[in-house]
């Protein structure tokens, strides 16, 4: 392909100036709308817009002009930049700006149901967070839920091996095994958590009674409730890991395991000596992705137990959800969320570093 120097070379100076002029004009326009609206909201100007939406339109117009002027100034290189620019601008405006705004909210005392409105209160929220035993409890629950990913992984691996074996009706079983992943967590919360596992008439409770558990209440004892939630979440996401592992198994060279079998290794030995080590990279991908999804766990808990009994099933997300829904506590809730984000980032970075070092040592 051509070098970028050759791509920029033949753009006349007047065209470059035009492009730069466009950017400057658009930026000035955006700044003008923004400043005007700030002045209006703060009461310095009489006329203004009812909402901030015109600022949004101004931002959109600015983004379009930025894209167009890239092509005008840099030609082919600008066209190439245009591939990535929309996604970058979209993500930055949808993530960076709200997160920055969220950090500001996190340090305010802002309850939507009180009349006082937003007030800066420094580190009070952070102090309250450290004393909030329910929040720490929910973080502890998250540790349990994340640890259970290993059990899910074992089951998913077993299912992937089954699907990879020489079986009839493989496609049927693959479709059926995939189905739980497609289902709405809310519908499942109600029809499984609240109906199928219902104490009086639910088939799951009847089965448990049949098996000798006298009082099959799935959501009253803290640990049993926690495990019940985990079982439902596992049921929905095991297909996800199963598919990843199945793809890994199918990509594995067949002659390796066959050679082992000829050498007299039985199935168990072949699995531990050959299949499992070869599958490690895929396994790591599956587990890491699954942990990422697990850290967002909320829908089932919100709908089935609302965190109960006594916070035993709460995930961080469902706890913050209720902090907002029941108490309208935007400031404090945001502080909890931002703190969670920091913990997640540290956890994931540590995990990834640990995993990559471990994989390198194995090679």
């Amino acid at each position: 392909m051509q070098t970028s120097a050759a791509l920029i070379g033949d753009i006349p100076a007047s065209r470059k100036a035009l492009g730069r002029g466009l950017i400057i004009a658009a930026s000035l326009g955006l700044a003008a709308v923004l400043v005007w609206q700030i002045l209006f909201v703060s009461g310095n100007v009489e006329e203004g817009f009812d909402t901030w939406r015109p600022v949004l339109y101004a931002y959109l117009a600015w983004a379009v002009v930025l894209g167009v002027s890239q092509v005008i100034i840099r030609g082919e290189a600008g066209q190439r930049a245009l591939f990535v620019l929309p996604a970058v601008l979209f993500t930055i405006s949808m993530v960076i700006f709200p997160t920055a705004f969220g950090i500001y909210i996190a340090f305010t005392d802002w309850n939507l149901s009180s009349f006082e409105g937003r007030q800066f209160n420094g580190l009070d929220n952070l102090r309250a967070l450290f004393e909030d035993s329910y929040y720490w409890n929910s973080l502890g629950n998250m540790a349990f839920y994340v640890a259970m990913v290993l059990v899910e992984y074992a089951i998913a691996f077993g299912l992937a091996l089954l699907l990879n074996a020489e079986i009839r009706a493989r496609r049927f079983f693959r479709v059926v095994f995939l189905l739980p992943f497609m289902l709405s967590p809310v519908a499942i919360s109600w029809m499984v958590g609240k109906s199928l596992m219902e104490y009086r008439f639910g088939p799951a409770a009847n089965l448990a009674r049949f098996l000798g558990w006298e009082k099959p209440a799935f959501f009253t004892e803290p640990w049993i409730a926690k495990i019940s939630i985990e079982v439902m979440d596992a049921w929905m996401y095991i297909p996800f890991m199963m598919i990843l592992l199945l793809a890994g198994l199918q990509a594995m060279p067949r002659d390796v395991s066959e050679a082992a079998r000829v050498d007299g290794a039985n199935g168990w030995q072949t699995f531990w000596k050959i299949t499992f080590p070869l599958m490690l990279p895929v396994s790591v991908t599956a587990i890491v992705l699954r942990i990422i999804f697990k850290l967002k766990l909320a829908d089932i808990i919100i709908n089935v137990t609302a965190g109960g009994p006594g916070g035993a099933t709460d995930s961080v997300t469902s706890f913050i959800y209720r902090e907002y829904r029941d108490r309208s506590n935007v400031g404090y809730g945001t502080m909890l969320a931002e703190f969670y984000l920091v913990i997640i980032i540290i956890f994931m970075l540590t995990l990834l570093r640990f995993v990559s070092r471990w994989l390198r040592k194995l090679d």
Partner: protein
Amino acid sequence: MSSTTSAIEAAAAAERSAARYDQSRAARIISRTAIYGALLLWAFICLFPIYWTLTTSFKTAKDVQQGALIPFVDFEPSWIGWKSLGLSPDTIFETSTVREEFLARFINSVVTSLSASMLAIVIGSLAAYGLSRFEYKWGPFRNKDISFFFLSQLILPPVVLALPFLVLYKEVAMLDSSIGLILLYALMVLPIVIWIMRDQFKSIPAELEEAALVDGLSSWGAFLRIVVPISLPGMVAAFILSLVLCWNEYFFAALLTSTDAKTLPVMVASQTGSQGINWWSMAALSSAAIVPLCIVGILLERYIIKGLSTGAVK
């Protein structure tokens, strides 16, 4: 000499293998039974909740209380669940406010998930293509950093964005609007789309586009005319996967919508009345939320698996 020894050896080997054959036949039958037993057990675990949901929508209060399982044997099916949504045979031609409410939510869900997936596919594919073909240098950021920036959005928990967006959307009058949800859902699936599509584009040889560039097409022309048609299956896979995630999304919808833009999951979650839960109508609603994706899953399973397993195997 050598031929006789080899004949004797062959005979001994045949005898041994016959003995092993009997033994291995028994082992084989046992292992077959175990494999199919496990497969059928898990298939039952996967299907039973769906079966329970569908049948409960035909149960009257009495049948629900008894935990009836099999239609026509344990209980006499009635249209009660679908009647409560105005969708049973005798109510479907009458005007029904419940049905209108339900259809509005259903259409909201369809519009939101389709548009969000579409938006994510368009900007995600463009970005993935750019990142897999061209060298970028924006300030200190190179391709690797830009890719990492996109993928790192995957770990961002929704709860971090939810409250700021609640406030921001209120300020720009986008609270309780489908557009607001579409933008958020597109953001949510964008990293997944970029991940899948980057892999797709990497598997297409760059020579194809180089030939097109020589023929005088611009990089956009080459992308639209040559790359898009080839990578269409990958795009479909990413689209279906996004669709599943957006259709089922509950958290943002519950916080950011109230009347106009409410989606189906929110309607399902808000079905508790003053006299407890009407299980038949809850089951009918849940079926309506589940069945479309079950159909998608059965028909397009190939694409979902393709989408999910991208990047797993290098």
